[in-house]
């Protein structure tokens, strides 16, 4: 397991980083050693907010929603793929809140997939557009002769 603060490779199961001492977050499919119904220690210094009933523990184990990627694809790629990714991102949150861990994980995978599809299709179309422009630029004047 790698420390999220300093990147040091710590032994698996360690609670604190052996290099810098910051707390280590287990990955979400790994069962924590502590009581799963116990809320995590608040180390952020910010007020604790109610995250609702969560059978599996806390944020560190929730699959990523890819919401930031999805919203960027929606705004910059101009195709409906981004909206599909946001729908899946919303499903990660709602399924996780209702305790459906497997469902949240598959929704997370779908959100990631559709963000990449949106990005890939638009990148391909832009490259194609540039190539067509270059061909038109190079081929255009010659046709007049």
């Amino acid at each position, binding site marked *: 397991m790698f420390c999220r603060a300093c990147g040091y490779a710590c032994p698996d199961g360690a609670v604190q980083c052996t290099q810098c001492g910051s707390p280590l977050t287990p990955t979400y499919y790994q069962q924590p050693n502590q009581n799963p119904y116990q809320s*995590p220690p608040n180390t952020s210094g910010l007020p604790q907010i109610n995250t609702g009933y969560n059978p599996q523990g806390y944020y560190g184990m929730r699959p990523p929603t890819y919401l*930031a990627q999805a919203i960027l694809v929606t705004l910059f790629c*101009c195709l409906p793929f981004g909206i599909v990714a946001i729908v899946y991102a919303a499903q990660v*949150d709602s399924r996780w809140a209702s305790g459906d861990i497997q469902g949240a994980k598959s929704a997370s995978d779908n959100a990631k997939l559709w963000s990449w599809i949106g990005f890939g299709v638009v990148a391909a179309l832009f490259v194609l557009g540039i190539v067509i422009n270059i061909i038109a630029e190079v081929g255009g004047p010659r046709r007049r002769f």
Partner: protein
Amino acid sequence: MYLKIRYSLWGLTVLGVICVAYTLYWHEPTANSWYPRCFLHQYTGLHCPGCGGTRASHLLLHGHWWAAVQMNPLLIIGLPIILAGCAWQKCTKHIIPGFSQIVLWIVLLFFAIRNIPSPTTSWFAPTDMNSKNLEQQK
């Protein structure tokens, strides 16, 4: 190694943003045909949630912030708030209840009202302002 890749990706992103901002500042999107066009708008005539984003960024870089908001309110006001929310959740390890559902509904509603009653007459559709017109009005 892992951290090196991570930092170089962030560096490349910052460099890319600076290059795009430089191009956007010196070249007016409505006056140059080589800017990328919205595919959805080109083929269906509908305004997508990101339409007007290039023009809005250009106006914002020239200091016309209210004109930029009128061009695309979701990009200028909504995107910083949404990204800040995502970053807050990631940094503090706290889940904001219903955050992604709210974002989904905001985007869908914005997409709808940009095209109601029609894409050309909607209040939230991109306007036909540009920075040259705005500077002449002053």
